[in-house]
């Protein structure tokens, strides 16, 4: 059994088939890249997996549990975190406050606890340190640069100790230095056991990071394999150049 199994998922908006019987599996402990031309359905697939959209057909299974029609909150609770193509943080809260939104512990006590207590802050601080924005702890999130917001969004997910993280174009709009730094962080987290599924246009980023690459085209899986296999596949090139 794979960690995440997507089977025959379809989704249409109006008459347009964003996903057409798409199937994909993500193995435990892997870093899977998801590439494909614009409009091939990558973000829609992310939305379906994480519960932001309901598929018209097909199933999504996570750790053996059917999550096809679960809501985003339940899926997040099961240990699947995601980031968005356009960063979604809470702009009017400070960086530290943003870090405390995601649920780490359940129960009323956790909810009524004062997050400003030192031990509550310590863990968040460590993670901010890890992604490299700990100097911005008390700044309002809206004052961060685009790249810093991406890192914050990433850290916000990590605080909930997810098993799998879905990143939607993590390197988009991020300067090369930060992107390299991000690659390192993802590798470190992967070693500690977190599985990644990454949508990315930056081929260099994908090829250097992923151990498996899946290519989407017109809402379905075109091919998958190691970065080398995918790179050498003429069908992939045709998908990007064609139409």
């Amino acid at each position, binding site marked *: 059994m794979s960690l995440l199994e997507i089977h025959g998922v379809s989704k249409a908006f109006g008459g347009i088939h964003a996903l057409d019987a798409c199937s994909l599996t993500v193995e435990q402990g892997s870093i899977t890249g998801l590439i494909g031309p614009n409009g091939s359905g990558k973000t829609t697939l992310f939305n379906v997996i994480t519960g932001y959209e309901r598929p018209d057909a097909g199933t999504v299974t996570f750790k053996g549990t059917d999550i096809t029609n679960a809501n985003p909150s339940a899926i997040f609770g099961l240990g699947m975190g995601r980031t968005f193509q356009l960063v979604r943080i809470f702009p009017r809260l400070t960086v530290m406050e943003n870090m405390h939104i*995601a649920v780490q512990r359940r129960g009323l006590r956790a909810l*009524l606890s004062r997050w400003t207590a030192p031990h509550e802050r310590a863990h968040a601080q460590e993670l901010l340190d890890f992604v490299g924005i700990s100097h911005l*702890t008390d700044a309002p999130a809206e004052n961060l640069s685009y790249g810093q917001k991406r890192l914050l969004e990433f850290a916000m997910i990590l605080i909930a100790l997810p098993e799998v993280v879905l990143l939607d174009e993590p390197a988009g709009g991020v300067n090369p230095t930060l992107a390299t730094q991000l690659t390192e962080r993802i590798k470190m987290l992967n070693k500690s056991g977190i599985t990644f599924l990454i949508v990315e246009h930056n081929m260099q980023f994908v090829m250097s990071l992923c151990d498996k690459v899946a290519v989407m085209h017109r809402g379905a899986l075109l091919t998958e394999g190691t970065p080398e296999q995918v790179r050498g596949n003429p069908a992939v090139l045709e998908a990007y150049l064609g139409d």
Partner: protein
Amino acid sequence: MKQPLNSRLIKIAWPLLLLVVAVAFPLIDNSPAEQNVAILTLIFASLATAWNIFSGYTGYIALGQTTYFGFGAYAFSLITVNQHLSGGFGLFLLVPVAGLIAALLAIPIGWISLRTRGHAFVVITLVTVFIFQLLAFNLRGITLGSAGIFLPAPGFPIDWILLPYYYVQLAILVLALLVSWYIRSSRYGLWLLAIRDDEDRAEGLGVRTGASKLTAFIISAFFVGMVGAMYAYFIGSIYPQYVFDPALSITIVLMAFLGGIGTLSGPIVGALILETAQQYFSMNAQTGYYQIFLGALFLIIMLLLPQGIVRSLSRVWTAWRVRRGAGGSPVASEHQPVAVEKG
């Protein structure tokens, strides 16, 4: 985030000093007219603080808090009259009961109205006020309709007849402030603020948005209901059009915006300014001028100072300190999470 000891002391000292002044005020100034205004100010400050607990934190602008004000007032009055209770200190014990009844009403109304967002939510909350005003007029068998309900006289000695109202209302305000402050510094408060910024994203991060909003709505209604009961007892009579008054909702919202929504001190500052103005106009001007003043103030605040007086002043203060080289970086001093909210 380490703060120097004296700045932390100042943060505790200011509210304490204000509390001491508030407690001492009626003992020093025993003019009934001024004590009267002081009680009304406390009433409005409590309402604006209660409004802030829901709307200020979640960003859902509720224009229907008057519903719970009126419901609290009617619950209090009907129990008093039907049980033939006599005036005195005992009636103050009914105030939290009235608050609870208002909170119970807030459960179904909140549940229905919070299914909508943005514009629709605002409009629905405003509509609820009218529904209840209509009910209060029309259910004559229960509410006596437009004849109103008269409450028993308190029977306090004339020397300090207003003092019990003043101190009970002050206690309600302090309690509302403490609850508001506690929520703001808890993870639950962060959840509410996250809902304000991006509700869908918050939900995706495991925030139980529906339950969080409804809880805040009910807490707010509880306090508003208590204030409604206090108002009924203090004024001595209630009528549908005065306790289910849509303009009251608007006044509360303006007070909160005037001071600054989402802050603790904002609603109090707003209530002080507006209540003073209201008194001035009711004594010195004919009908209409107060509405013009209120409307113009609305326009000025919304268009020029949407952040409210407290935040705008604290920004000016910070800028001044930075210019003098006394403060740290403007970012650090302006956004210490709790410090700023305390204003």
